[in-house]
């Protein structure tokens, strides 16, 4: 047993109607991941299927449990678009899918030495360049405070690649912007509520030395905004974040936030399934996928007041999910 009895995928093409689409994210209770699942649904509908939605509450073990269970079912024409909870969760998912011959696209988290190109049905790994986005918003923050002054940083969940890369990006930015001083850094675990309390405390600790707040995601940036408002500092301290969740884009648009970076949840949710669907139905040959597309950074944009309008209403473009276009947003290979 253990699952090797299914023929490795890719041999006989599946009927489009026989394809089983699974999208798995942490939960449905945050806007980013909700939009991911919505994107997946939209794609599935466009090919006349439905997406099986799985959520695992940010619980690594639960994610693995669900994956094993899915893989214990019929895997012949299975397509999975998965957000691994952390780097450590990717390997077992990949090995399981590989054994079962299920088509797999992973996003965000993956250890550097684990490569899709080494596997047959792990089609692609998609992520955003966290170092770059951390640096971009760092630079934007530096500009906003006029190139000099103190800032504080709110880190994400410490043991995630996203948190670490983004903070590394901030440090790069600080090297360039020598006038900017990092007064303090605290972990607020990507959470709006934690960011609120931590920011309040840091504001009393550093007082009016704080000119800007760098947050590793928008949720924390929004929490920081509330803290500023409660401290009567709304508008006096610049705030940046990452993710381009609708509320953050609105805040950027009306000037309460300085910048954010687009991570396009609904595109991620759709394109992962699309890649798998194209491969399963034989429209995309695994061997023919360019090496650089097997693990890539997706395009991302710095969103500031100038271009916020364009991102205000996120919508999926069905054209993005056509088999010829699924790699249109590749910004470069994973480094």
């Amino acid at each position: 047993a253990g699952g090797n009895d299914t023929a490795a995928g890719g041999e006989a093409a599946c009927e489009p109607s026989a394809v089983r689409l699974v999208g798995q994210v942490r939960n449905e209770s945050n806007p980013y991941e909700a939009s991911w699942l919505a994107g997946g649904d939209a794609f599935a509908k466009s090919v006349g299927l439905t997406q099986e939605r799985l959520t695992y509450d940010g619980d690594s073990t639960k994610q693995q449990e669900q994956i094993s269970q899915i893989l214990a079912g019929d895997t012949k024409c299975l397509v999975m678009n998965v957000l691994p909870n952390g780097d450590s969760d990717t390997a077992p998912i990949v090995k399981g899918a590989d054994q079962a011959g299920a088509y797999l696209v992973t996003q965000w988290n993956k250890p550097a030495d684990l490569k899709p190109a080494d596997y047959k049905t792990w089609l692609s790994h998609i992520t955003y360049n966290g170092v770059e986005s951390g640096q971009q918003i760092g630079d934007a923050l530096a500009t906003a405070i006029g190139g000099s002054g103190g800032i504080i940083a709110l880190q994400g969940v410490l043991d995630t690649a996203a948190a670490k890369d983004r903070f590394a990006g901030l440090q790069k930015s600080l090297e360039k912007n020598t006038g900017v001083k990092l007064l303090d850094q605290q972990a607020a675990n990507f959470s709006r509520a934690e960011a609120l309390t931590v920011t309040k405390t840091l504001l009393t600790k550093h007082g009016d030395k704080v000119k800007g707040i760098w947050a590793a995601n928008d949720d924390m940036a929004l929490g920081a905004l509330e803290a500023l408002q409660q401290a009567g500092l709304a508008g006096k301290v610049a705030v940046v974040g990452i993710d381009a969740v609708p509320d953050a884009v609105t805040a950027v648009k009306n000037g309460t936030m300085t910048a954010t970076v687009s991570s396009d949840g609904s595109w991620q949710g759709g394109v992962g399934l699309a890649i798998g669907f194209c491969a399963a139905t034989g429209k995309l040959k695994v061997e023919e996928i360019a090496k650089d597309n097997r693990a890539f950074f997706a395009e991302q944009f710095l969103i500031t007041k100038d271009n916020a309008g364009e991102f205000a209403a996120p919508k999926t473009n069905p054209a993005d999910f056509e088999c010829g276009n699924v790699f249109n947003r590749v910004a470069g290979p994973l480094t």
Partner: protein
Amino acid sequence: MKPVHRLTGFMPLIALVALVAALTVADPDFLTQRSLIAVARTAAPLIVLAAGATLVVLCGGIDLSIAALASLSTVFLALWLPELGGLATPAVILVAAAIGAAQGAAHVLLRIPSFIVTLGGMAILSAVALVISGAGTVRVVDDSTIHWLDLYLAGYVPMSAAMAVLVVALIAVVLTVTPLRSWIAATGYSESAARLAGTPVDLVKIGAFCVSGGCAGLAAVMLVSRQFSGGPTMADNLLLPAVAAIVVGGTAITGGHGSVWRSFAGALVVTLLRVGLPIVGVPSAYEQILYGAIIVVAVALTLDRAKVSTVK
């Protein structure tokens, strides 16, 4: 009286069967051999974790640190495997058992409720795990010495599940054939009476925490063999499922009454709920609602009211 009594002992099993039946009705594809094997394999770490912590609960305490300790142990194992090889596994289990015992000793000697000691322990162990792992995943490149746990016995039985059964059986047998069961039950039902009957209450408690810690270590080995890596928060989310497994099994949270076999069945019930509901297509929000409701009903079924007079 007698047959009724017998029946209550089987309640956890009955709940388990009922749940499998319900899931099968919801999705006939669920009841396949592969699917059940996957459940067994998946449940193994939870079974081991819950079995160990059951001893603490039987003594009337609670161990909230098991999950954090398991996470820390995955980091230890991943860090030590390159150097220690095959010895890494026993080393991790021993260290985890020692950490468990240390918490037990703090509870007993400082007279602090186990809830608080292990809540503090949970925070401290998490911090240590974060620091020594550099706040990241520690990859295991050569997993040859723990790979066996990820294999299948006779091609069908997941080795980790067999191991879990073995651990549960071992604990159960040791308890029944030695005075330990009496000591633990007496401690859990009435600590002062136990002590005044010369029961080594403090040692029994420290021992229970020690076994609980060791089991957390073993669960960590299973997780690493499955994940090919260790991580500082890898097992953190197993705490509440483990406690739920114990209670769903019908072990009294107030101590004294219960068994590791009950927790075994409880862990399977909890695992089925965790994986079964989403797999048969229950949407996320309803899944949580159903999980909450079913678990309450399951406990209502499994608790042996003849043995547990006041329910708090």
